[in-house]
Structures are given as structure tokens and as C-alpha cells.
């Protein structure tokens, strides 16, 4: 990391990057990282407000300013690079449907009730992404700056998902059929589209991945809620959020220029 000033934007997932940065920031005195975040779907409304990026809703605006420590909206001129995290960029549509919708590329056509085209999956996934929060935020930032914007995939769910029966039911057939390739391929299609649109794409660090499509338990245990005042871990079976170790790993692996 050679960049001077990094702006991280995201939803609850910035918590991991924030925790990770806290662990390593002393080693990188030349770097400054500012975190802007919104809870739930609030960043869906991120907007250009008098040259700065912020939120119209008073409560959301307050949180957005407060969490950044700047007590202000995001002033794009102040940062050298932007890193976007979480915000639903995750192959939800693919993983959720795999068990019952086979395609020519999958190996589950005998067990699945339906057989549809790979294009239907790809269209569904891209439609979700292109109308989703991540791309909304990325595009809003792109409108005000030509600086690099890094889009990071939201981490795969924690391997602990197997403790949740209905989630296990979605993942088991993918593992049984060794069809992680189908997931990765669809993610690659999206990554390429994001690159085509002028964004840089960051994949989940390989060290953190379990059985190709999950995140190792050690990176999810003890993930923290975003609200700083709570200083509190997510509920035990939260399989979405990662901990500070995961954040540290990301800062180490990702090469932000």
C-alpha cells in the first residue's frame, strides 16, 4: 500500500476493515484511512450534496458523518483512492437457487427440479448487482472523481452456516457436486462487467476461503457490529460478517494504488 489517503465506504461490512486497520495502522503511518458507512440499505440513497457525498435523511446523515470521525460528508477531493466493501456484492442469487435450478454448466441436473440457462443466472445476478447498493455507491463516486475506485466482493458466508439447516441445504448440493466453479464463474462475469465499467475489483483473500465458497470460521468468529457506541459482537450465528483478522488479511493482500 503506497497510497496516502484511503476512503472506505460500505455498510456493516466496513467493521471488519476498520478492526483490521486498527490492528495494523501503526505499521503504516504514511497511510490514512477514513471509513464512511451506513446501516442497512441507507447507502442506496447516497447522493451528491453540494459537492460532497452524503445522505439526505437526517438520521442516516448523522450516522454517516459520525462514523467517519470527520463529522462531515464525504469530500472526494480529500482522498486518493476509494475502497468499497460489503453492500450486497455477493453471489446470493446463484447460491440460493443452485439446489433447485440446474444449468448446462452445473452437475446437479438430475437432482434439481428445474433446468435453465446459464444466461438466466447471469442476467439475474447482474440485474441484482446493477440495481444494488454497491454499484449505486460506486457510480455516485465515479461521477465526482476519476480516482481509482476499488470494489471488493463481500466475503463468502462463514463455514458456520452448516449449523443453520436451511443454509446447509443450499450449500450441500454445491459441495457434493463440486460445483463451486459455477459460483466462481458467475462472479467472474460480474467482476468483468464491473471492470468494463471502470472499477477495480478485489477478490476475497484466498487464505480466508473454506471449501472454495465459504469463509473459514477463524475469520468470522467475533465480528463486531458497525455501530461504534455498541462495541459489540454480532450474534453468534451471524455468518455474514467477518472479524478484524479478516480485515487485517484484506489490508495485507489487497494492493490499492
Amino acid at each position, binding site marked *: 500500500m503506497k497510497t496516502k489517503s484511503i476512503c472506505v465506504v460500505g455498510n456493516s461490512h466496513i467493521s471488519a476493515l476498520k478492526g483490521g486497520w486498527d490492528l495494523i495502522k501503526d505499521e503504516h503511518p504514511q497511510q490514512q484511512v477514513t471509513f464512511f458507512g451506513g446501516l442497512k440499505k441507507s447507502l442506496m440513497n447516497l447522493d451528491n450534496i453540494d459537492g460532497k457525498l452524503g445522505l439526505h435523511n437526517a438520521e442516516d446523515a448523522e450516522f454517516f458523518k459520525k462514523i467517519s470521525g470527520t463529522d462531515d460528508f464525504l469530500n472526494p477531493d480529500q482522498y486518493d483512492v476509494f475502497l468499497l466493501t460489503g453492500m450486497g456484492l455477493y453471489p446470493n442469487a446463484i447460491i440460493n437457487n443452485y439446489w433447485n435450478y440446474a444449468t448446462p454448466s452445473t452437475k446437479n441436473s438430475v437432482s434439481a427440479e428445474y433446468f*435453465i440457462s446459464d444466461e438466466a443466472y447471469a442476467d439475474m445476478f447482474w440485474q441484482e448487482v446493477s440495481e444494488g447498493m454497491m454499484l449505486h455507491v460506486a457510480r455516485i463516486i465515479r461521477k465526482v472523481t476519476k480516482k481509482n475506485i476499488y470494489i471488493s466482493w463481500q466475503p463468502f458466508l462463514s463455514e458456520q452456516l452448516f449449523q443453520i439447516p436451511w443454509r446447509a441445504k443450499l450449500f450441500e448440493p454445491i459441495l457434493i457436486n463440486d460445483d463451486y466453479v459455477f459460483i466462481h464463474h458467475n462472479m467472474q462475469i460480474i467482476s468483468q462487467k464491473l471492470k468494463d465499467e471502470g472499477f477495480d475489483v478485489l477478490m476475497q483473500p484466498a487464505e480466508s476461503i473454506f471449501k472454495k465458497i465459504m469463509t473459514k470460521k477463524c475469520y468470522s468468529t467475533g465480528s463486531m457490529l458497525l455501530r461504534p457506541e455498541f462495541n459489540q459482537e454480532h450474534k453468534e450465528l451471524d455468518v455474514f460478517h467477518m472479524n478484524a483478522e479478516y480485515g487485517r488479511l484484506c489490508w495485507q493482500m489487497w494492493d490499492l494504488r
Partner: protein
Amino acid sequence: MSRSPYENLCKNAFWRSGVSTKDPFSIEGLYRRKFKILRKDRIATAGSCFAQHIARHLKERKFNVLQYEAAPRGMSADVAAKYSFGVYSCRYANIYTTAQLYQLAREAFGDFSPAEPVWEKDGRYYDAQRPSVEPYGYASAKDVMTARKKHLEKVKAMLLDMDVFVFTFGLTEAWIHTESETVYPTAPGTIAGSYDPEIYSFKNYSYNEVLKSFNKFLRYIRRARNHRLRVITTVSPVPLTATASSLHVLSASSYSKSVLRAVCGSLEGQHSRLDYYPSYELITAGFTKGIFFETNLRSVTSQGVANAMRIFLSEHDPQGNENPKSAPPNFPENTTQGAMLEDDIQCEEILLEAFNK
């Protein structure tokens, strides 16, 4: 002994009191149901474009419209519509002719295999019986057949399970595989395939052919079913996009629609459990002065559909909520429900317009 048999008829038997002095929004008694449809009845829908409106309105009124091939979870309404999910009870797309309906039933039960089932275009392969459901086709014919096999299982289940079958008669014009008489929903070369006059030919089904196919369909599925079926028929008011009959398209449309309307009248008389719902005349009759057509004089306005459905639902769901809350436009939770937008009707037939140069 009465003087004239017309003496004791009700007001709706006379044009002046039944039509001339009414407007299309106040016309009464145009439709009297033959039988009830309950909310728990399993309703299956099929037919030409216009049938999609009926399915949508019934779903909005919380009728039990069957869905055997729902869209994948999280698929947006737009994408679901693009891939023909949620349009009908199965993903067969539009079934324009009764010949195709009967053929599909036989295929679902394993008694028929279509000739030339896979059509190619630009190196991609399409299901000739429903080329529009996968707009990019598949990489191989085998994939098409795999998808079709899964589809037919669902069609079979639907045909066995349904309590009420809603079918909209759409066209008499079709393209067939000459030797086997396999019928297709689109002409070869429209969405996929290529027109070879040695293999394919034009077919304009006659009244008797349309009637017979539908009756054969009913008899055919009855053998396999163990409970009674009620049928609601309608005729699509939408004229042809194009005709291959060599007639002017206005005359060809008039002929086609007349044949279909005549068949429905006959069917209604033949079967006590078959009802005809007269949305066709309500939308096309001269007395509506064309107000229910869009400026292309072809598509039916949402107002026209709403008016037609109002009269249908006033018989089948008189207490129903007229304005059910519609799902928010973004983040569709259940895309199958939200898949059909009011003006977003799937019509492969309109693709013919691309050949109008």
C-alpha cells in the same frame, strides 16, 4: 301460448337496452358465470398473450393460480419476464393454437415427440416449442432437451392437479412440420430456426380443426385425471401482428378471431363445465369505439383489461378487494408475484413485426 318468443326476454337480450344505451364501463350482465371458482381452487392458465392479464388479475385477487415453474429466488421482475417465468402456470410461454395445446399435453404424458424439436440460430439452440423462454438459447441441443424434459414433468403435474383451466384462444395461423404435422408456436426463423419450405409449411386452422383439437385435449387429459375439471375460455382481442395467409392482415385477423370466437361459442354449448368469458367482444365490439386499444390499434390498454377483468371478477369475486396493495417496485421479494407488469406482456408473435421492412 305467447304472441312472440321475444316478448318475455330480459333487457340484455335487446341491443338497444343491452348495448346502445350503455357504455363499455357500465354494461351489465354481459357475463354470468356457469360455475363458481373458489380461492382454494387450483387454477392453471395458458394461451395467447391476453391470458397473461387474466392470470395476473387472478393472482392480485389472491386466487390460487398455480405456479409450477416459478422464477429463481431473487430474480427481478424484468429478468423473470425476459425468461418467461411467472407468465403462466408452467413456463410454456404463449400457446397460440389448440393444436399446440393438445400436442403439449400428449408430449407431457409421453405420447408424442415433436419433430424438429430444437431450432438453431447463430450457433445457439432453442426449444422449437417455446423458443422465447430462453432468449439466448443453449449451447447444445442436448441442453434444450434436458430443459424440455424438466418442463414437461411440470406440465404433466399441472394438467393432473388443476381444478380450473383458463385458456385464451389466440391464433388460427401456425407453422407446422409438414410431414409430421408437429405444430410450433412461432414460424421457423422468427426467434430461431430457419424456414425451409421443404420441411415446414403454413397452416391456417379451420373452425373444425380448432374445435376438435380442444375437445381432444379435454378428452385426453380427462383419462389421466381423477377429479373434475372446469374450463374458462376466452378469445384474445389482439389482432395478428402479421399474416401468412395472403389476405390483408385486417381480413386475416377478422377471420382468425371469428373462427376462435365461433369455436368458443360451440364449446360453451357442448360442455356444462366449460364457460366462455366474453372479454373479446367487450374489448373489440364496435360499441367500444376502439377506446380499449393503444395507438397501434392492436395492444389492449390496461384500462381495457381492467374493465374486462372487473366484469369477470364481479361474477367470481364480487366481495374482492378492487385495489389490492401492489408490491413495491424495487427489491421484489417474491418475483413470481411481481413478475408481470401491467404493460409488459410477452408476445412472441409481435416479433414478426421485425420482418416488416
